């Protein structure tokens, strides 16, 4: 009798290996980063705790004795069906104000230029031995767009969900550390001192309301598979801008965003099972994710410098780095850098315009990857 009881209680202990302890440590580091360093705490804390939960003895929260656990049910219902990232898009759309972009439509092109790093990283990942689908998921980390990254990974490489999501959100929170050295290395002080004319004309409300509808139709015509991504983002924006759904807009921005973020975080953490996470490929993903972020920022700056060759009124090339989707962090970082060189140089709204176009750019780039990868796999 005593033997049976002892065996029962030792089952859990015996199921632990060094891999589980390693994952507890990684989960602990993520929680520490969230609490002590304030790095994306809303995501890194649930992800860290989810990583600990799923690596507990016998993986009861995932699957035990053939019965799905709570986290697997959430994973299947929210990530595999792509519902969580799409709901996050509704919330993000409700938070975006496109007016600064309407006032400076040429900033739209930075949303394209600053996504070069995605495709460049896909090439690099392919050379390092990842297959095309895996490489595509790794490259999309550079978009600095968590929901798009999760959406694409859930379709192309579910086994890499844990490392890719953790790397994506970690680097997104590290934008204030990653971008300044890249921008400093690529610009001269003279360029960083360039002032940009303030533009503040009214945008008719019909434009602001119609924009999300038109973008959805246009994007879906060009890249049909991107319809859910762009559609949910623009639906959130339409709720915000229509002027008659104030309550829903606030709900999307607060309650919906908080609730889905909470579930998304712990569910993504649950994809960090030791056997999938503790691989050499995780180190490669960390390296490639960094490359994607750096190249995206660098190419944005290069693009601004190229445009400056042809423009009468020069623009501050730092703006180019804001073409990524990390909104509004990237624009704040660039404004801070401008103020460092000249305390009266305000380029925030220009930076915000580029940053907002980056939001659209990342979703469309994600849609393009989704559409082109299967075609290329068949064709070549």
């Amino acid at each position, binding site marked *: 009798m005593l033997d049976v009881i002892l065996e029962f209680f030792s089952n859990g202990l015996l199921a632990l290996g060094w891999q589980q302890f390693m994952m507890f440590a990684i989960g602990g580091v993520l929680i520490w980063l969230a609490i002590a360093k304030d790095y994306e705490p809303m995501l890194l804390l649930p992800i860290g705790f989810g990583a600990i939960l799923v690596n507990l003895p016998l993986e009861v929260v995932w699957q035990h004795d053939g019965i799905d656990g709570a986290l697997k049910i959430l994973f299947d219902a929210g990530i595999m069906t792509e519902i969580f990232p799409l709901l996050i898009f509704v919330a993000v759309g409700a938070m975006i104000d496109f007016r600064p972009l*309407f006032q400076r*439509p040429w900033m*739209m092109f930075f949303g394209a230029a600053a*996504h070069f790093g995605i495709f460049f990283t*896909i090439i690099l990942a392919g050379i390092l031995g990842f297959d*095309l689908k895996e490489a595509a998921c790794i490259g999309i980390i550079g978009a600095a767009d968590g929901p798009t990254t999760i959406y694409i990974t859930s379709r192309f490489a579910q086994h890499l969900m844990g490392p890719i999501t953790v790397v994506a959100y970690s680097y997104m929170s590290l934008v204030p550390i990653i971008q300044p050295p890249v921008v400093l290395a690529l610009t001269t002080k003279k360029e960083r001192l360039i002032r940009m004319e303030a533009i503040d004309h009214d945008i*008719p409300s019909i*434009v602001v309301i119609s924009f999300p509808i038109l973008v959805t139709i246009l994007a879906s015509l060009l890249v049909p598979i991107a319809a859910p991504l762009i559609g949910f983002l623009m639906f959130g924006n339409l709720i915000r801008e229509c002027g008659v759904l104030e309550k829903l807009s606030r709900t999307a921005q607060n309650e919906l965003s908080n609730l889905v973020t909470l579930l998304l975080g712990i569910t993504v953490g649950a994809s960090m099972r030791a056997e999938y996470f503790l691989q050499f490929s995780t180190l490669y993903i960390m390296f490639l994710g960094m490359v994607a972020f750096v190249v995206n920022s660098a190419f944005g700056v290069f693009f601004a410098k190229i445009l400056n060759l042809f423009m009468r009124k020069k623009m501050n090339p730092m703006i180019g780095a804001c073409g990524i989707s990390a909104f509004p962090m990237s624009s704040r970082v660039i404004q801070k850098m401008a103020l460092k060189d000249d305390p009266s140089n305000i380029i925030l709204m220009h930076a915000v315009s580029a940053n907002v176009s980056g939001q*659209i*750019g990342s979703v469309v780039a994600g849609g393009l990857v989704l559409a082109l990868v299967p075609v290329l796999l068949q064709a070549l």
Partner: protein
Amino acid sequence: MSFDILPQTVTLLGVGMLVLFIFMGLLFVLIHLFVFVARKFTKKPA
């Protein structure tokens, strides 16, 4: 090191960036056009 999927990845880079720029260009034109038309038909306050 593997260069097996290089043709696919390079094609993805070329086509991806091209379509991305075309899309952003279309939006650029659309916004300009839309703001222009909306201004023309919106009554200014007296």
